[in-house]
């Protein structure tokens, strides 16, 4: 009996162990894909907080374990407190007021509802005691003494290479009414940039910029374990995956999340959200898709899903694997548009509106764009403060490629009977207005204004990459991006590392191109300055005879801009023949001429329409015959509008 009892106990313990291991294995496979870390994990955040839906505040404690992988002793640590940007005297608000930003016009003024804060109640270095009083706000970018978006703390003794330090921070996050991708609207909350986040040791120094109206984010990779207590029955979504939830029986619930190899953590909660789940098979693993929809936007859900799956497949095929087990899509409700169109690791926010016509591909475009960020912002994780183009711009290029592939090159943004709009067209419109204002290499907060920041960081980069296709070929550009991604994912690369990777993929030194596009403000504007066909025997009194008379055909191409790029000219003649000639584009102008028994019908520079950086496409061509149809059409519409304006005014008579 004793033996039997012992054996039964042994079997029971073994069974329990096996069950636990299996359960652990299941949990692990649900949260992790790679058996080893994907990134050089520098940080480990454990955060527990309670959200008060009435005051829109989160009272939380953060335990940050930082591992010194810099190779040098660290005697101070800077932290971001992003929510403090939403205060009247902050650098963010001042810049937004003076120059505008994504969601507000210049001079929009201050509204109390947009107040937000990150208040550190206490800060302790575990084992070293409370250092709250030694916290010091710093303003490394502009010296604004009223900006409280960065503080630093000096531990009593430096952290040696390979050593670990733990910060325990009690903080209260007060969310603004939604602004700059974070905050509440009615009972919806999008919590972004909500916890004290340590800066990045990068290129031999701390990199921890203040929050600016035009800047985004930069942080180190690591793990996140987040436990949130919120009102019961609210639907919650977050970066990473949910690992547990329990009803506390007091009208609240506590939800646990876990994430690995990401550098930021965002979450959302709302009682109204409808949750939809699906999955997609990519390179042998399944990615769960979790979509949190605003009830008024349910019609957009299938559109989001279709765009997301199409985008994921193309990135998987063209760029590399998406290694995380889940992607969460959050659809902000009406009025919370400032939370829409944003990327966080493994979580993106979409954007739509009621009754959005199917011909307007705005919803699809936002989902495509934000998912693309999972690669450049999420995994490659470049410094968005200093090199915004490396995320936003490269992503914008991919947006054009993916949207073109899914919805057609000329109709990838709007596909209506009344008109069409392409992704490339949108970029050209945005870029042409600000083409020579700022170089791509400029830190985001130093751009002339938000218009220039958008037109250059996003659109110029996209057009730079599209134009590069004309220089080295489309496949080479995509292959280069694939190589760059594989080499630098989880590594925070610099612009130099990007250009080196692209040069290597192209098998040629493209520095002449990068110098003009990334580091310079050169603009491209090649035009047909003049074109003519004159008789060679101009002195002759005989009548011209088609096919007999010889003409001196001449086209002068003018390099109006300052960009140095070879020019291809195509000339067509009235006997149906055509020629293509190349000019190195070094001088200011070049004369092409042909003596032949036919006259010029048309001439065009960049006949394959691949030089997307050319800011003025109208002067790229010339035709011998005038064609007034476009003028007639537009002038006709103008006439009609004037007629209707006349009628409205005559309502007074």
């Amino acid at each position: 009996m004793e033996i039997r009892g012992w054996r039964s106990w042994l079997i029971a313990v073994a069974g329990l162990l096996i069950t636990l291991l299996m359960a652990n294995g299941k949990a692990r496979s649900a949260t992790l894909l790679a058996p080893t870390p994907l990134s050089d994990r520098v940080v480990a955040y454990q955060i527990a907080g309670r959200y008060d839906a009435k005051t829109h505040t989160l009272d939380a404690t953060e335990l940050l374990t930082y591992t010194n992988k810099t190779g040098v002793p660290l005697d101070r640590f800077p932290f971001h407190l992003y929510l403090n940007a939403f205060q009247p005297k902050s650098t963010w608000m001042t810049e937004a007021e003076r120059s505008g930003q994504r969601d507000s016009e210049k001079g929009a003024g201050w509204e109390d509802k947009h107040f937000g804060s990150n208040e550190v109640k206490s800060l302790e270095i575990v084992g070293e005691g409370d250092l709250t009083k030694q916290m010091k706000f710093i303003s490394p970018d502009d010296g604004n003494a009223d900006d409280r978006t960065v503080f630093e703390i000096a531990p009593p003794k430096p952290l040696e290479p390979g050593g670990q330090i733990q910060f325990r921070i009690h903080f209260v996050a007060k969310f603004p009414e939604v602004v700059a991708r974070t905050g509440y609207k009615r009972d919806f909350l999008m919590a972004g940039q909500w916890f004290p986040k340590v800066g990045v040791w990068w290129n031999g120094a701390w990199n921890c910029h203040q929050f600016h109206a035009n800047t985004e984010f930069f942080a180190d990779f690591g793990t996140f374990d987040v436990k949130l207590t919120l009102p019961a029955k609210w639907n919650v979504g977050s970066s990473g995956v949910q690992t547990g939830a329990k009803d506390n029986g007091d009208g609240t619930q506590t939800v646990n999340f876990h994430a690995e190899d990401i550098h930021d953590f965002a979450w959302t909660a709302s009682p109204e959200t409808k949750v939809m789940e699906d999955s997609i098979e990519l390179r042998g693993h399944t990615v769960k898709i979790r979509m949190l929809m605003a009830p008024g936007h349910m019609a957009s859900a299938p559109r989001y899903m279709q765009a997301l799956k199409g985008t994921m497949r193309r990135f998987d095929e063209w760029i590399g694997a998406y290694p995380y087990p889940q992607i969460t899509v959050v659809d902000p409700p009406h009025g919370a548009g400032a939370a829409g169109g944003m990327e966080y690791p493994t979580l993106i926010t979409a954007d739509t509106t009621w009754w959005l016509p199917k011909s307007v591909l705005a919803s699809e475009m936002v989902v495509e764009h934000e998912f693309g960020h999972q690669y450049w912002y999420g995994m490659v994780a470049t410094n968005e403060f200093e090199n915004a183009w490396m995320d936003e711009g490269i992503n914008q290029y991919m947006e054009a490629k993916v949207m073109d592939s899914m919805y057609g090159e000329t109709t990838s943004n709007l596909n209506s009977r009344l008109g069409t709009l392409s992704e490339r067209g949108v970029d050209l419109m945005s870029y042409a207005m600000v083409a020579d204002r700022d170089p791509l290499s400029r830190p985001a907060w130093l751009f002339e204004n938000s218009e220039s920041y958008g037109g250059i960081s996003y659109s110029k980069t996209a057009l730079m990459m599209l134009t590069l296709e004309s220089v080295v070929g489309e496949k080479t550009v995509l292959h280069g991006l694939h190589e760059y991604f594989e080499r630098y994912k989880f590594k925070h690369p610099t612009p130099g590392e990007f250009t080196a990777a692209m040069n290597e993929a192209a098998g040629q030194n493209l520095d002449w191109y990068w110098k003009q596009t990334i580091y310079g403000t050169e603009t491209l504007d090649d035009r047909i300055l003049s074109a003519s066909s004159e008789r060679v025997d101009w002195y002759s009194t005989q009548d011209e005879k088609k096919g007999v008379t010889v003409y001196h055909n001449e086209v002068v191409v003018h390099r109006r801009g300052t960009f140095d790029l070879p020019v291809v000219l195509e000339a067509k003649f009235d006997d149906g023949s055509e020629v293509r000639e190349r000019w190195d584009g070094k001088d200011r102008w070049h004369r092409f001429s042909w003596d032949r028994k036919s006259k010029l019908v048309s001439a065009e520079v960049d006949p394959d329409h691949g030089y997307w950086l050319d800011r003025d496409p109208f002067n790229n061509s010339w035709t011998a015959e005038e064609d007034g149809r476009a003028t007639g059409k537009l002038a006709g519409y103008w006439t009609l509008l004037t007629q209707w304006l006349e009628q409205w005014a005559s309502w007074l008579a």
Partner: protein
Amino acid sequence: MSGSVRSSAGLVWHHQRLLWWIFAINLALAWLGSLPVRATLSAVLDRSLESSKLVAGFDVSTLVLLMERPEVQMRSLAPGAMSATAIFLLVMLMMDGGVICELLEDRRLSGADFVASCTTFFGRMARLAGYSLVPFGLLIAGGAAVGAYADKLSDNAPQERLGFYVNVASRLMLVLVALLLRLWFDLAQARVVHGEERSVLRSLRRSFKMTFCSGLYAQYFGIAVFAAASMAVGTWLWATLPHGAMGASFVVLELVTVVQIASRLWMKAASARWVALQTP
């Protein structure tokens, strides 16, 4: 009421030369106003292959890039349209006396009589138009205030669509009140011509009561619905045409314009007929 609608429509039909005259002036002025636009666009587009994107289809970015060019700025092209609009308003005020006189008397006026009526009543029509600026101005200001309130509701109300619905309802109300105001001033115009009243203020006072007692509002409403429906149908028809069918597009859109002018004339005919019947 349907009889009244039919007879006022008949009045417009019988005097359709007025309609064609007004349409011709409307089109001619707009065409003249668009000449600077035509010249500017022609210099950029007529020898550029890029213009094909606006002929075979309608590429929005091509249009925007065109409008971003310094020589194609709206502020330099708009004065032509604004001048045409101001002149058309002036011409309509001048023609009002003749038009109303012909509708009231239901006979074709000779050229000399028409011009005489126009000159006789021009001052009074202009004064009436001036007075109409007050209620229409108040209406626009009220509409703007309700619009701002609707925006606030849209931003803050617990129901996310409340602001939108308030906005739509307020715009509808705006149109209905504008129709009422127009009826009031149309009746005043008809009274001024019919009774040769010198004091337009007195005409306005007397017409105010008639506005509510005449039963004409339903007719005005019906005509406005007809105008809106024809505009919707015409626009739909235009949208179904191929991009290259510019001739057909022009014909359809001009037909829509003719119907809009006819509808306004129909309202004037309804009020003139009512005044003629009430005060022999």
